């Protein structure tokens, strides 16, 4: 299940940043991916929200700056939405 979330995130990121799914690793962040600019970031948020049917709050949006943080934040939002 978790693994599924990660592969979905990778697929979204690949689409948004125009890179190969396989090339995305734990080390990737706004520093390593060329198209992860402020605009790329906005597209990432829109694409993730669509993929998982969720909505990030402002704090979460600001934290989405590396692949591990994206995974962490998406899971967190999904957990919270399950509880409520």
């Amino acid at each position, binding site marked *: 299940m978790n693994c599924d979330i990660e592969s979905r995130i990778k*697929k*979204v990121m690949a*689409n*948004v940043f*125009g890179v190969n799914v396989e090339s995305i690793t734990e080390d990737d962040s706004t520093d390593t991916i060329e198209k992860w600019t*402020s*605009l790329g970031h*906005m*597209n990432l948020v*829109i*694409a993730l929200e*669509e*993929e998982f049917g969720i909505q990030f*709050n*402002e704090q979460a*949006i600001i934290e989405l700056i590396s692949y591990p943080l994206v995974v962490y934040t998406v899971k967190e939002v999904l957990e919270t939405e399950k509880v409520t």
Partner: protein
Amino acid sequence: MNNDVEFTRTTSFNEMLGFVNHIEKNKPSFHRTTHIHFLRNFTIEPIEPFLKFYLYSAHINVHITYSDYDAIHTEILNSDSTLILEQPEFVVLSLFYHVNDLFSHSQYQNLSDLKNYVITLYESLIEKTKSLILINTFIPSSHGTLIQHSADIDGLPAVYEQLNYFINEFASAHASRIILLDWNKYVRLLSEEKSIDHRYWYMNKAPFKKEFLNQYAVDISNIVKLVKGQIKKCLILDCDNTLWGGIIGEDGLEKIKLDYYEYPGKIYYDFQQRIINLYNRGILIVLCSKNNAEDVWNVLDNHPASLLKREHIAAHKINWNDKATNIKEIAEELNLGFDSLVFIDDSAFECGLVSKFIPEITVLQVPKELYLLPQLLLKNKIFESLNINEADKKRTLSYQQEQLRRTSAQQFVDIEEYLKSLNLKLNIHIAKDSEFARIAQLTQKTNQFNLSLKRYTEKEIQQFSQCENTKIFSLWTSDKFGDYGLTGVFIAKNNSNHIYIDSFLQSCRILSKRIEYAFFTYCFEQLKSAWDITTNCYTDYFQTQRNGQIFQFLQMLGFRKMNEKDNFHEYELNQLSLLPNFNFIQINEGKHS
């Protein structure tokens, strides 16, 4: 992937991004390219994937640029800005005022200040650019106060309405340069909640949600498509359960559902009304039905509620052959490219078959929710056009005559004998003011026999006509079957004692009759003597999949290729070759009566 049926409703943002990436990686050669420049006071960049998605799907390459934030005035005033220097084909002026900013901004104390501001902006854009300018309406907050206080802008949606009304008036008065896109229409369609993103507004100055951006991109790309000449010319219709409910061959004239009052017949009646409107605008109406022909004609001739009559039909294939083959034959008969055709059928099988074998065609299926049928074409923005003129209306008549001509073509073995018997008459003269609209339209619509594929507006044609070293010839054609109207254009420039052929095109209605040789030779001789040039002549042939006939034509005339870059081929003419005989064509000069 280029099938309209699959694209219409459910493409997600992720799928759009995937498609755009795919296109940009593989770089297919679209022969249409455009430049859209955004002048904006907020972050509009997130619209880019949507816009690219719709334009790439229509095989149009797009270059998108943005002004700096709130730098609209500097762009207009600086002669080296993108706006002035590059003269983008489209300028999208996107102005958004969040309720809190509208009048708190020191520049505008009240409504009339703001009115003056936007109008000055529009006017200077009209003056300083040649672009088509897309502007927008302003969105009032739907969370206004219950009681309206004159001091509180939240409580005054009427202020926005006044402003929008005023902008609308301005846009209608400048319709050739300005197009108004109604942002409030998107909000009505989507609700405010799905339109405005207050979160992103405060974080990134990006006020719109993806659903809103999608609508905005649909409108912008539809306008681009209209201007870039992806114009639909012909509507091909199935009959049973498309033009009426039920099956005429089984139910008979009395039992099919077609009625000007009762459900569900009224739905088909309204749909037929829309088809008649298209007919009146010059769209060719064609029937393609698996049926006995006499049954179908019986409905058109005798059903009291059938608005569609025999005389509306430009061509028909009512038989039991497969529809893809039928449509291919129709396209050939009417001399139309597949991408100018629209096909409507109720059967998923037929829709699938046709779009599989003819991917360029636009296929629409009769909706399962039948009440949506009358809006089908409007909703998909098919057959919209920026301008209608008289020649369009005559077109069906002219195509019906073409069918007559084809029937007689079969009786002749020798093509020259046949052409002689047509009594072809040409009238060639320097283009007149009254012809500029039609000439611009021809440059925009003609894809097959078009040398340079340069698309011009009426205004540009007018400017050419005032230019001393430029000549525009118009060609009128008629034969024993009827009048084809203004069907050919030749634009030439005197470039330091060389004849440069800027444009040479003929409507597909008059091809393969050797008219092109007569038209070219005549204009060429006129230019030589007017400008005192011997034979030095050159041109740029813009090669596409559809204008291959031009290549043969240039070779026949004796043009030789000098240079080649991408799809541009520079050709030069030193000596006109001996051409096929065309002395049976009668040429008149001067005013067409």
